[in-house]
């Protein structure tokens, strides 16, 4: 049995690692739940964002937060453009998965051509900074990720719950024809949502650049866990995605500390399988 400090430390690092899961899951959950599009391209966009942050930081020596400010509007545009293709060709829930798989492969190839397949590491002074709380260390950067995820999740929740656009989006997701009969302009709102979802990928990308080592093939590494988070959290439920991300993060890191690191993936997927089999109505 590991010491209490180790356990506490692993819960903290799990919570913080979960922040990134949540951040990635947020956009995915929105487009799947409200637009019925399963967007694998979300991962590609996040990594494109990460590489852009890295590039702007190492070549132009731009501060990461400035890079993210530049990236977010560009990605909003990318999201809208991608959605235009979906609309133009009447992409369904299932074909969206295939089309965005293609998009992801193309983005992966572009990244590999521009930045090569080598591992890249964005060295920043604050990458190693941390706050000491009693016997525990809280890395600043991860804490910031977590706070951003929580902030965006609550903002999105409020947006969906209290604004007209949010309500209209939820109504249209439930019954497009009925929503249209009540004057909901789903097309315009769908473009907005796609843009927002892509912008979230850009934000997540900024943090990925700072926290992890970059390689084009890493795009696929997140797929399983993040989808698990999306489903466990419930589609189009921002707070759910946040909590699920934290839950998976903690369960993984506690498994790493208590058992061995290698068994960690089993946890999230077992939770996912159990949930899908026992509570299929949730999604």
């Amino acid at each position: 049995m590991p010491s209490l400090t180790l356990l506490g430390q692993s819960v903290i690092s799990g919570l913080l690692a979960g922040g990134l899961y949540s951040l990635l899951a947020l956009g995915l959950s929105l487009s799947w739940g409200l637009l019925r599009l399963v967007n694998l391209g979300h991962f590609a966009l996040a990594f494109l964002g990460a590489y852009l942050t890295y590039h702007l930081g190492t070549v132009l020596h731009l501060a990461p937060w400035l890079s993210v400010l530049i990236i977010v509007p560009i990605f909003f545009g990318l999201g809208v453009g991608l959605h235009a293709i979906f609309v133009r060709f009447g992409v369904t829930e299932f074909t969206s998965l295939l089309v965005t798989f293609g998009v992801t492969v193309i983005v992966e190839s572009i990244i590999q051509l521009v930045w090569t397949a080598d591992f890249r590491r964005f060295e920043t002074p604050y990458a190693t900074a941390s706050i000491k709380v009693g016997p525990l260390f809280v890395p600043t950067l991860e804490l910031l990720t977590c706070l951003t995820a929580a902030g965006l999740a609550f903002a999105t929740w409020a947006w969906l719950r209290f604004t007209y656009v949010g309500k209209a989006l939820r109504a249209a997701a439930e019954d497009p024809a009925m929503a249209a009969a009540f004057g909901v302009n789903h097309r315009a709102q769908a473009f907005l949502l796609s843009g927002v979802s892509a912008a979230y990928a850009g934000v997540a990308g900024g943090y990925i650049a700072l926290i992890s080592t970059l390689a084009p093939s890493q795009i696929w590494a997140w797929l399983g866990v993040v989808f698990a988070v999306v489903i466990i959290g419930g589609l189009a439920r921002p707070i759910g995605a946040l909590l699920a991300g934290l839950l998976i993060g903690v369960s993984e890191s506690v498994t790493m500390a208590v058992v061995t690191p290698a068994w960690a993936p089993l946890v999230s997927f077992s939770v996912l399988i159990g949930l899908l089999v026992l509570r299929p109505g949730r999604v």
Partner: protein
Amino acid sequence: MRGRRRLVAAGLLAAGLALGALPTVGLPAFYESFLYLVFSWIALATSWSILSGYAGYFSFGHGAFFGAGMYTTATLAAAYGLPFLWTLPLAGVVAALLACGIGAVVFRVKQLRGELFGLLTLAITFVLATIVLNTPIDGGPGVYLSGVPMPRLVGSPTGTIYLLGLGLAAVTLVTAYAITRSRFGLGLFAIHDDEDVAEVKGVPTFRYKLTAFVISAGIAGVAGGIQAMYVSYVTVAETFAITVPLYVVLMSILGGARHWLGPAVGATMITASLYAFTGGESAVLGRAVVALALILVILLLPDGVVPSVRRWWFTWRSGALAGGEGRAHRVDHRLDPGAASASRTPLAVTPRVPAVTSYGDAAPGSTAPPLLECHEVWKAFGGIQALRGVSLTIALGEIVGLVGPNGSGKTTLINIISGHHGADRGRINLAETRLSARSAHEIAGLGVSRTYQIPRPFTHLSALENVALAATFGPGRCSARQARADARQWLAFTGLERRAEALPGELNLHERKFLELARALAARPRVILLDEVLSGLNPTEIASAIHLIREIQAGGATILFVEHVMRAVLELSNRVVVLNEGEVIATGSPREAMRDPHVIRVYLGKAHAA
């Protein structure tokens, strides 16, 4: 037609033999490896489509079965010294058992949606990978098969691998072809379009899905076994990568996942184009080009290459025979007044009513014993009590009208009799057989058949296939040929014979309603449950439908029909049962029941009852 088919079969056999003889002519090993890869992907993609293409349950877990096969062979051959060829069937069995276990749990989940099944199978792949990685099966460093002796089927080791790949691809394609032409395949296609209706029409959906999953996984397992020997070094990272599940999906969609040859065409196209870009930068570029091609194909040919090409070919051919049969037929159908009136008054073209029931049930009459009996049936949906102890009996050969205001529980009762819902309490018997607590397909097999108020045809099957399916899976259980002949007869009976090849989407409401009717009749049921067949039809159509129902009864059928069109109720029923708020409030002859003050109050309000 038959001669041509034989020619095609002979051609395929010759091609297969020629391919089989290839390793003996001393081809460079490079070509043999390349062709092996094509065969391997053909086997994987085709086997994937058996469940996922035909029945529509997209699995992202094909990598798990492929990996299970790889590790079975690797473990048995490397650690236990079993001869390589012996491990292949075992690899298939292990993968099939895995699928059987997963399917037995997962397919019991009610309302398992497609994407959920996809993600579940993906998750299972990761779980399996973790287990293999952390147990002595692999343990981390990977398994080497370099010490395993390669059996010498022909001169070179690559030749042997090539032949194994060819054999597996051929077996898989033959299996896929046989399934698409079989009753099993028809059932899978029906599950793809509407699983609930398939079950109600008599398709044992659970068993079919599980069987398809097991066959699909078994083939993937064997493919994995061969692959293990081919790569001779098996690692978790390579084996359980996202490549296999994604590539098989792409290949199948690209080629056409609902056609037996589609996945093979897709597999060949993708493998060849990936091979064209091997080495260095061009590999990266190649992948991007393949991905772009994929996007374009999915956007422009959503059905896949093979079905699209087939459609072009048929259109082109019927165009080439300008003024010939194809086009003339269509014009004839649209403009010929005779054809139009024929479809409006179907009976004008039906000389003979086919016998509805194939059973030796005794002669009809009110003294006959009850054929269908509901006793104290209760059903609640959440807080809503839909049925409160409904009891009714229908004698052999009787037509009973079930009427009542909206929400009185009529359709619920039909759903419960047909097994779509289970009753909370109560008992339903068909003659001596208890129906309650049986699954819907068993009930259909016992001779209960129904229509849906809003027609629910199988959208990817033609009108003829829709009806033939009901005949195939109904209590008659006839052969495919017989089913098609029967189906034609029923289409003629309902005035749809000219629309036999049309897809349901091309039919208007009236035709779809009659298709529902034809589908219910084709099962040759003992009891037919008609749920508002007349709603939405115009007076002429109603008249012809009433005529049809009379003919059906004359053919010896027993009918329970839900209807709001009072004229039809009065004209057709021997007896009327009135439901209100889940209770039977009146029963008797139509005129009697309609004069009952309670019934009038329910239908028209209090003032009229006075």
